[in-house]
């Protein structure tokens, strides 16, 4: 049952809040009790393989579809459409009128979000110039390349200067140069205090950009918090090469340690690096190299979401990040 809460019952300083969102379709439960808190002015990543429920969650947050149960509050409104003028949304599948020219396409999207048409046109011209598409302003969108059309749509998402930007798989289909431009744009908007939510199945983007992430797998939130918190779920990894193949030093290694091509890989013991180092030296290991690596988001993702989700992510075409 969908409950409607008054804006007063929602948390201050949180741009987007979802409580136990559920979405059922005839054949399956697409989203199963998703709860999120997106702090105002943060870059928030929704991470998960295709089919995990990211897009459905975003659509519920934006009011495009109604949840089967649960609540959400977007910029202080329990009906997201009421905050539409302050939201910019770039859907996963880009949608533009091909017969419109780039300038009118951007201005139209601004007008939809409450911008006066003449102001929207002026801003469209400015945005197109700034992004190197000035000479394409009067060209029909159908004549633009895919990358250009995606840029036009992105500019249409930003033209009304929203306070919340929701980007569904924004890096999909962009070349490395444009991915870099988009990352810079996301950072600059966030620096202006704009809240940004984006979904991605490419961990590298989330790792570089996000302060907070939610890992979604099979419609459920497997993790919701800061990126360093996700990483902290795992112990640092030790990579060790020794001159001696065997000896008393072997008893120092944890039982889960594995040898890959002469290199020992294991989690750093809770006692820390110094006791480990001392025991290895005392045990006559003959240390050749020893590296302590902080686990990346990918390892954290595998640990949190499971191997199956990680494999699903790995099998998807991954964009080359900047």
């Amino acid at each position, binding site marked *: 049952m969908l409950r409607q809460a008054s804006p007063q019952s929602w948390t201050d300083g949180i741009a987007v809040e979802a409580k136990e969102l559920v979405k059922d379709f005839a054949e399956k439960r697409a989203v199963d009790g998703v709860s999120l808190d997106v702090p105002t002015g943060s870059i928030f990543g929704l991470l998960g393989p295709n*089919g995990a429920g990211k897009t459905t969650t975003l659509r519920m947050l934006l009011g495009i579809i109604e949840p089967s149960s649960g609540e959400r509050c977007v910029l202080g409104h329990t009906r997201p459409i009421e905050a*539409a003028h302050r939201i910019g949304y770039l859907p996963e599948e880009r*949608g533009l*009128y091909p*017969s419109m020219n780039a300038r009118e396409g951007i201005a*139209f*999207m601004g007008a*939809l979000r409450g911008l006066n048409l003449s102001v929207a046109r002026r801003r469209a011209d400015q945005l197109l110039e700034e992004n190197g598409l000035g000479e394409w302003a009067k060209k029909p969108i159908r004549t633009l390349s895919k990358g250009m059309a995606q840029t036009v749509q992105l500019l249409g998402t930003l033209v009304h200067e929203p306070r919340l930007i929701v980007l569904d798989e924004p890096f999909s289909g962009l070349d490395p140069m444009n991915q870099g431009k988009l990352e810079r744009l996301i950072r600059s908007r966030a620096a202006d205090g704009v809240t940004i939510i984006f979904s991605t199945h490419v961990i590298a983007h989330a790792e570089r950009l996000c302060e907070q992430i939610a890992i979604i797998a099979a419609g459920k939130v497997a993790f919701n918090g800061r990126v360093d918190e996700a990483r902290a779920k795992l112990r640092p990894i030790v990579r060790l090469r020794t001159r001696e193949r065997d000896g008393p030093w072997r008893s120092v290694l944890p039982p889960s340690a594995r040898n890959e091509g002469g290199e020992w890989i294991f989690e750093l013991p809770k006692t820390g690096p110094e006791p480990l180092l001392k025991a290895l030296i005392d045990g006559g290991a003959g240390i050749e190299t020893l590296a302590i690596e902080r686990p990346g988001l990918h390892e954290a993702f595998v640990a949190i979401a499971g191997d199956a989700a990680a494999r699903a992510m790995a099998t998807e075409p991954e964009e080359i990040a900047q």
Partner: protein
Amino acid sequence: MKELLRAAFVIARRDFSATVLSRTFLLFLLGPFFPILMVAVFGAATTPMSASDRPTVGIIASSKDYQQLQIARDRLQDTFGALAMVNIQQVNPTGRPQQSGQVLASARPGYVAVLEGGLANPRLVGSVTAQSGTAKQLRLMIAEARRATTGTGDEVNLPVMLASPSPSAPNSGAQALTARGGQSLLFLLTLLLAGMLLSQLIEEKSNKVIEVLAAAVPIDSIFLGKLLAMLCASLVGIAVWAAVGAAAIAAFAPTGLSGLPPPAIGWPVFILLGVVYFAMSYLLLGSIFLGIGAHASSAREVQTLSMPVTMAQVVIFAFASVAVGAPHSNKAIGAAIFPLSSPYVMIARAGEVSDLMPHLVAVVWQFLWVALFLRVASRIFRKSVLKSGPAKRAGRRRPFGLLTSLGVARSGS
């Protein structure tokens, strides 16, 4: 409400511009002129043929008798029309007893029969029977010619005066003709133009713009905007056609419409109401068509829907037509209350009854139904079409695939 109307205006402006400024709109404007052009071209070619195709009767008679017969024929033609009358052509009498046979046998001009014996002792010879139309017409012509000769019953003086009938009396008079004409024109225009709304959301669904729209504005605004845009485009078309029609009448038939009985409510108000009721009829049917068409995912599905939708319109028109000639009958009132037939009934009423107040009530009533239809259509659209979910699978499609999810939503995660 303000935001709903603002957003609807933004969408209407885009759709109207995209429609009216396209090349296909020019074709749309020219569409109604194609049949007229066909009639002009082929009509011109067929007119002399049809005159010559009518049976011709050779008249073996003196010039005096033939002239009287010709005058009688012309008089009858004024009443029955040129196409209904047989042709006659004089053949000078030679006095030979076999003349009729020879005339019939001649290849040109090819008589169907020959009348001999003049007006005094007429006798028809040819491939016609006594009960044939040709024989009956010649009897009538001869009788008319004889009456002219004797001076009795030559012309009938019949002054015609036009007056409004008693409200309780069945009106099968002149104003019913105007009422029927107005109703038929309204139906024809709605039939031609409202069907376009079936395909109005196909573009947004195919190019994925629908998700951008649905995230930015209420679905009600999308529907209202599209409806208003197409109504305005249709009114532009009607204005162009009306202007061309008026110019053509002014140029070729300056008194062309003067013979039309004036509607009870007067021409200016009747025309104004015609525009209003066209708009209401368009909005009423259009809101339903938009809702139905929104579920179609391809042009093929829209085409499949067109026929039943057209048939439904014909049924509505048939229902509304009961009001003509009996504007105060229970049937007429019932048809005026039923929202879909209401505009047709009310325009017919304007032709026959001069009261204005019922029109005000009817417009408000119809407007409420437009709002209701739009609301229901947008609700259904949001619930059944604008949804995310897994891709439809082969063999599991619902009939016509109408209630399957949007392409934009299918690929989402």
